[in-house]
């Protein structure tokens, strides 16, 4: 394959990676931005969303698109509700102290993973894509659904941006983000905003899972890698910056894709990892974080 087509493929793959990263990171970024806590269980919520998608898709008759659409509705609701429960019963009682939240959400991660192992089993299961479309280019073929994921990621990000910028709940979240105590003094029910934000973050993880699972599989340990990558994306982007998260996803996804053209897979990963680390070393506040 010539260099041109190879580069094209690398860029397409990079874009898909970026879309997946952005999708998994946006919920984490939201929670991080508004509540200033690291939700280690974010990957587990992602996994749970995929699991619900698998379950729903298996129980809806007709072409795969119906099952997939049903999952797109059901998974965020189920996962979001569970997250709200976690927030109210655990995180709130920890007063959102950063270290305590890390430990507690590691605990939640284990609980959810093991619950999945017990109910779902250890095997990987596929979920059918809502449509099958294969693009045949002169040099290689490509999955149409993967490109759809890129479009969907843009839509989800735009939706989150609209929510933050244009809705009352978005306003409440932004107010709470600036100063929890002032928000409370202004009569905002901070507890409810936090529970809502945490649930929304988890629901976004579930949406990401429903979108991503047709190009991977459901597995009870599937949450670990997305969590790490999403976490990295959020930090590189700059704390809680939606724009930063998007740009970081593009930088990481594309660099990962293009770097993999030149070296063996493992060496590419090493180089890409170090590169991203160095971005932070020389720009510790992230790409779009405020200085100091």
């Amino acid at each position, binding site marked *: 394959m010539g260099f041109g087509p190879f580069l094209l493929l690398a860029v397409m793959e990079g874009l898909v990676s970026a879309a997946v990263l952005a999708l998994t990171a946006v919920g984490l970024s939201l929670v991080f931005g508004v509540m200033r806590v690291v939700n280690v269980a974010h990957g587990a919520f992602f996994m749970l969303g995929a699991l619900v998608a698998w379950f729903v898709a298996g129980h809806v008759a007709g072409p795969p698109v119906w099952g997939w659409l049903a999952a797109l509705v059901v998974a965020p609701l189920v996962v979001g509700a569970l997250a709200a429960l976690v927030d109210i019963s655990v995180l709130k009682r920890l007063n959102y102290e950063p270290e305590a939240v890390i430990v507690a959400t590691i605990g939640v991660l284990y609980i959810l993973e*093991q619950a999945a192992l017990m109910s779902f089993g250890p095997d990987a299961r596929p979920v059918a894509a809502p449509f099958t479309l294969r693009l045949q280019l002169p040099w290689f073929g490509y999955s149409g659904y993967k490109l759809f994921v890129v479009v969907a990621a843009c839509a989800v990000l735009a939706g989150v941006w609209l929510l933050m910028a244009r809705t009352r709940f978005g306003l409440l979240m932004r107010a709470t983000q600036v100063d929890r105590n002032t928000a409370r003094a202004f009569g905002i029910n901070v507890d409810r905003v936090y529970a809502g934000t945490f649930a929304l973050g988890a629901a976004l993880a579930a949406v990401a899972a429903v979108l991503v699972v047709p190009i991977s599989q459901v597995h009870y340990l599937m949450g670990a890698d997305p969590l790490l990558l999403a976490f990295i994306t959020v*930090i590189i982007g700059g704390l809680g910056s939606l724009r930063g998260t998007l740009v970081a996803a593009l930088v990481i996804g594309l660099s990962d894709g293009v770097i993999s053209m030149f070296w063996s897979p493992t060496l590419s990963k090493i180089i890409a990892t170090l590169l991203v680390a160095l971005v932070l070393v020389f720009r510790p506040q992230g790409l779009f974080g405020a200085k100091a």
Partner: protein
Amino acid sequence: MKVWLFHLAVLVALAVLALILPAYHANNLARILMLAVFATGYNLAFGYTGMLSLGHALFFAAGMYGAALPVSLWGLGALPGLALGLLAGGAVAAAVGLLALRTAGVSFMIVTLMFAQAGYLTVIYFNQTTGGDQGIVLSGAGRMLAGLDMTQDGPRLMVALGLYAAGLLAALALVQSRFGRVMLAMRENEERSRMLGYDPFRVKLAVLAISGLYAGVAGAGYALLFGYAGAGFAGVQYSILPMLYSLMGGAGTVLGPLIGAGAMFYLIDIASGLTTAYLMGVGIALVVLVLFAPRGILGWVRERVLPWLP
């Protein structure tokens, strides 16, 4: 004085335990002690100095391979191997610190995490030498440590106890020293400390390197005592484990990491006998702990019973 007597008494108690425990638990004790060395060093950086690193697996692995490779490839003796592992852990930690300490907080977490991830992949990449994920087994001959046979349970436990005792006493001396007070100062208020004439970068770099020495000797010890080195020990969970041990036992307490390592070990050991989903037990325990004893087991004791504990 009281503090030193107390910790010496703990070491004596451990030695007595080592003598009377049945074989299985005696061996567990050896493992727990080595993990506790690792976590004690981690806690110096995390609990005392406030550096939340997710890169300690790299320092542990540096020590592990720093000892295991020369021993298995060139027939180096176990004792120099142990020393090499110690230095490798410290050197890698210092090198990572030089870059990573330009950042703080969550960025520091991520940068250390990514360096460790790159380290893990590097171990995989050089699998012809390191054995990659499958790892390498050390022969019995390579595990003769200063005349003590590490394939024998008794000497092994003795060495583990010796290493832990050295690590504990060094940590105790450190946190009780003037420098130990500066470590706390970094954790509590870095800007104030700078305006008292301390260079946060150098203090933190020194602590990270010391912490790396602990991780290095623990990794080297783990390889030599138990005869195996593998890429799994360089994985991200080996950065998270010492943090969990510290938090569970009590971050910022000298004995906490030992208590945490022991509690976690037996939590898994006992729960795995009851259910396949034993990690769920771990999960529940973590949530309960953080809800009801947020300062960890020893932190709880210090608040209520022994306020003078370092």
